[in-house]
């Protein structure tokens, strides 16, 4: 698929305009459905094309922020229109895909008229969806089925900026066949054996010198026309550092959060899964649909929303696209196609917003007006990230298992812990589930309900315990399950608590309410090898005495003395003889031996931030304070996009992080 170098001159051929149908026929004869540009509803869209008659011959397109118009042209060119609203992901990553029959769905396709920026977009989605660690099998099959017939851009729209992103206009790799359109025909080169086979069947003459020069001139003019509208040197670092810019609120006054930019973007990959059933709950089917970080529900969890404001959502989109995409996938998420500019209904121009939010150093602004070659978009590794978030993820073990299948488990007993919280004991002999490490989680599916992530609160020899608080419809339904109920779980997922980091050290565990559940397996691990750890203290806060989990166990532990347990509640009646107040009051210099201690924290983020302050005062370095985060999760393996927190996918890179890794991410509102 990849052509490292231009083909020798002898292999550059010429396809007379009158013979273009022969190419389309050859693609069809290869058993492929040909997808290409065609005119519909006032735009050049991508759809099935059967002959040249379907192509936008004689049409030209113009764009501006928030505007796109077609016009007639005097010549017969078929591809001289740059990009329209459709992108190829509609076929590689369709807007709706049933979960049940996803992998079989491969019809052989040929993409006719793929631009350089769009090849870059396909390669970008390759890194996201099949670059690992988890792979979207549906995407892989669809993508592999598509032959790429590229077209060099002979024109550019006003909204194009591929030159700045280093993705075009020249087609240099990722194609099977590349065409350069001239007045009387096409200069043709093959970029892969599959492409060569098709071109070979056409039996074309070699392109002459004049045709080759005309092709090169075409590209040179296009590059000059685009210029370099976005200085990208250091852009990734600049935009990540601009998290608190006042510009985000200003953009949010104009931005409608309508999600059009993300849906026309050829690299945006965020999805959600919806479930339908018949009236009796049977025949439940799930469907994956395109979603967007601009919707309210995207970052919502039962009981809260991590990005409630439009400014939070716009910042997430732009920062991910140009900044944290590098951390996630090793490239920019933007290919400079300009669709988000043209197809924004209120004409917000990200080129201008980038320059306003994250302006380049003064010396670079000169480049804006010049036609200098595109600078490398790769950020300097030393400045790519917010310097205050510098430490790389530490070496504590990430999830080795990436199960994408659900396992049916049976509820063998239930236990009501508090008024709204129930523990479900599940039986399974699935080796992966039984190998669950402290702090990992599972996705829990019941027909017709959303699929929430649930922390494992104990691992047994023959199963798991999940402790679930009735926070939303799905979790409420789970707390109502009875013995014998069957549910499907997927996991274990994520990176758990680094037990080894505590070996030989004093341990402080700080938690509140339901937060004790994901910490219980950690306490179990400590108790299993008690002698390997120093003093262990558990500080546990709850709203009221009745909101405490695992009370009998905690009392037993406190009596036993192997773990020192201190509890506090926010409010209590006469019956409570213990402490009243917030959990941070339980931590002081006496509670830990400062630099030699390691701390594990789980609770609401505001509580964890307050605890982090107290632990810092006690002298525990941020590298040894570990927290676990909650986010909206759907896939659990870093493919759906929901759980992003700055440079992390919480599901895949976490949910457990050290404070040093998180840096300011824990405290930036709406990140």
């Amino acid at each position, binding site marked *: 698929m990849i052509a490292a170098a231009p083909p020798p001159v002898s292999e550059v051929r010429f396809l007379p305009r009158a013979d273009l149908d022969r190419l389309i026929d050859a693609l069809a004869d290869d058993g492929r459905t040909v997808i290409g540009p065609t005119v519909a509803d006032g735009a050049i*869209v991508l759809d099935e094309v059967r002959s040249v008659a379907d192509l936008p011959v004689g049409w030209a397109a113009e764009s501006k922020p928030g505007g796109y118009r077609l016009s007639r042209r005097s010549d017969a060119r078929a591809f001289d229109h740059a990009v329209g609203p459709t992108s190829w992901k509609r076929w590689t990553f369709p807007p709706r895909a049933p979960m049940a029959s996803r992998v079989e769905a491969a019809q052989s396709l040929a993409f006719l008229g793929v631009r350089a920026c769009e090849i870059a977009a396909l390669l970008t989605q390759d890194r996201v969806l099949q670059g690992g660690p988890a792979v979207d099998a549906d995407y892989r099959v669809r993508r592999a089925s598509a032959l790429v017939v590229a077209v060099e851009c002979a024109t550019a729209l006003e909204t194009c900026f591929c030159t700045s992103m280093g993705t075009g206009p020249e087609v240099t790799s990722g194609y099977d066949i590349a065409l350069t359109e001239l007045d009387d025909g096409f200069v043709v080169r093959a970029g892969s054996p599959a492409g060569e086979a098709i071109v070979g069947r056409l039996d074309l003459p070699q392109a002459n010198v004049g045709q080759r020069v005309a092709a090169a001139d075409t590209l040179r003019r296009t590059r000059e026309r685009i210029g370099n509208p976005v200085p990208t040197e250091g852009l990734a670092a600049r935009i990540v550092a601009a998290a608190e810019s006042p510009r985000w609120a200003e953009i949010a006054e104009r931005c409608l959060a309508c*999600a*059009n930019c993300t*849906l026309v973007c050829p690299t945006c990959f965020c999805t959600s899964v919806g479930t339908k059933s018949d009236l009796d709950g049977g025949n439940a089917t799930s469907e994956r649909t395109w979603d967007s970080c601009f919707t*309210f529900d995207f970052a919502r969890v039962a009981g809260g929303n991590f990005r409630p404001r439009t400014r939070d959502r716009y910042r997430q989109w732009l920062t991910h696209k140009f900044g944290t995409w590098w951390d996630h996938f090793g490239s920019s998420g933007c290919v400079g196609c300009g669709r988000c500019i043209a197809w924004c209904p*209120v004409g917000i121009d990200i080129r201008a917003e980038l320059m306003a939010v994250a302006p380049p150093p003064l010396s670079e602004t000169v480049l804006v007006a010049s036609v200098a070659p595109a600078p490398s978009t790769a950020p300097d590794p030393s400045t790519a990230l917010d310097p205050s978030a510098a430490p790389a993820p530490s070496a504590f073990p990430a999830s080795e298992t990436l199960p994408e299948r659900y396992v049916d488990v049976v509820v063998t007993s239930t236990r009501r812990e508090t008024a709204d919280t129930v523990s479900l004991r599940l039986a399974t002999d699935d080796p992966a589930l039984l190998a669950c490490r402290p702090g990992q989680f599972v996705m829990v599916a019941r027909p017709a309900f959303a699929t929430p992530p649930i922390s494992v609160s104990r691992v047994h020899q023959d199963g798991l315990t999940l402790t679930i608080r009735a926070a939303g419809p799905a979790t409420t339904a789970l707390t109502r399950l009875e013995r014998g109920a069957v549910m499907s779980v997927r996991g274990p997922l994520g990176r758990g608590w680094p037990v080894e980091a505590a070996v030989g050290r004093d341990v402080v565990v700080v938690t509140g309410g339901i937060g004790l559940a994901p910490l219980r397996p950690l306490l179990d691990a400590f108790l299993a090898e008690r002698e390997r750890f120093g003093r262990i203290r558990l500080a546990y806060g709850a709203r009221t005495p009745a909101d405490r989990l695992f009370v009998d166990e905690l009392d037993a532990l406190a009596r036993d003395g192997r773990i020192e347990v201190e509890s506090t509640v926010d409010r209590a009646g006469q019956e409570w003889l213990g402490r009243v107040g917030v959990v941070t009051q339980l931590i002081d210099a006496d509670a830990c031996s400062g630099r030699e201690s390691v701390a594990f924290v789980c609770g609401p983020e505001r509580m964890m931030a307050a605890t982090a302050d107290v632990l810092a005062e006690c002298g525990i370095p941020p590298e040894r304070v570990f927290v676990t985060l909650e986010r909206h999760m759907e896939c659990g393996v870093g493919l759906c996009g929901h759980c992003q927190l700055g440079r992390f996918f919480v599901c895949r890179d976490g949910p457990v992080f050290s404070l040093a890794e998180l840096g300011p991410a824990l405290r930036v509102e709406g990140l």
Partner: protein
Amino acid sequence: MVDVAARSPARPAAVHRPRVGVVKFASCDGCQLTLLDLEDELLAVTERFEIVEFAEATSNRSSGPFDVLFVEGSISTPEQAEEIVHLREASTLLVTIGACATAGGIQALRNLGDHDAFRAAVYPHPEYVSSLATSLPVSEYVKVDAELRGCPIDPGQLLEVLTALATGRRPQLPNEAVCLECKRRGAVCVVVAKGLPCLGPVTRTGCGALCPAFGRGCYGCFGPRESANAAGLASHYLRAGDRAEEVGRRFAGFTVNQEPFRSVVVAMDRLHGAHGTREGDAR
């Protein structure tokens, strides 16, 4: 009259069929007919639910009690304001259906005008007409358990509510913009490609992006979506040179009474009054 309830086959006695009623206030009946339009699912619905009150479908009548009551129409007269309270008391769950019941409907335009003047203009003897000065959604009078938006409602969303009722879960009714569905179905944006005004970006999804897919702008019949930046859209229209009067009129449709649409209508009206039509005409 077709008695759909009578047509349903005999059922095992063990299965409890929730008693369902369908009633209406100030409205056109179109939303209730959506239930009858569920042709493929209608038999299953009548097997699963006992329809005891539905004047459009059965001459069997009931005044309750109802396990689930679907209410169409806005509260527009003093009698309706009393009756909805009784119906609420007779119902375990109350679901409002359609733009009239959930937003006040097109008739809520009178909320922004002079009720007495309208009455005098329309009726020779307005003293015989007993109506309220406002047309309001049912939720302004009684607690509502779920709302189905739209003019008319979407059959798929109605089926989703019925399924949720039957299976005991909360209905999944997305509150995102129409634009997402428009893009998923591959429709070309009428704003960008044709310069048409469209309320899709600020309107709640649920219709399947019906109007934009047929080449016309969304007129907001599902009402505002979550965090609808209606002021931002109106400002954009004004910047683009549209007159305040026409901008206001775009938001003054079937869901005019819902914020933030109502505020935009009021603001545009004020702007129009302040500057008059002359300035607008000059643009």
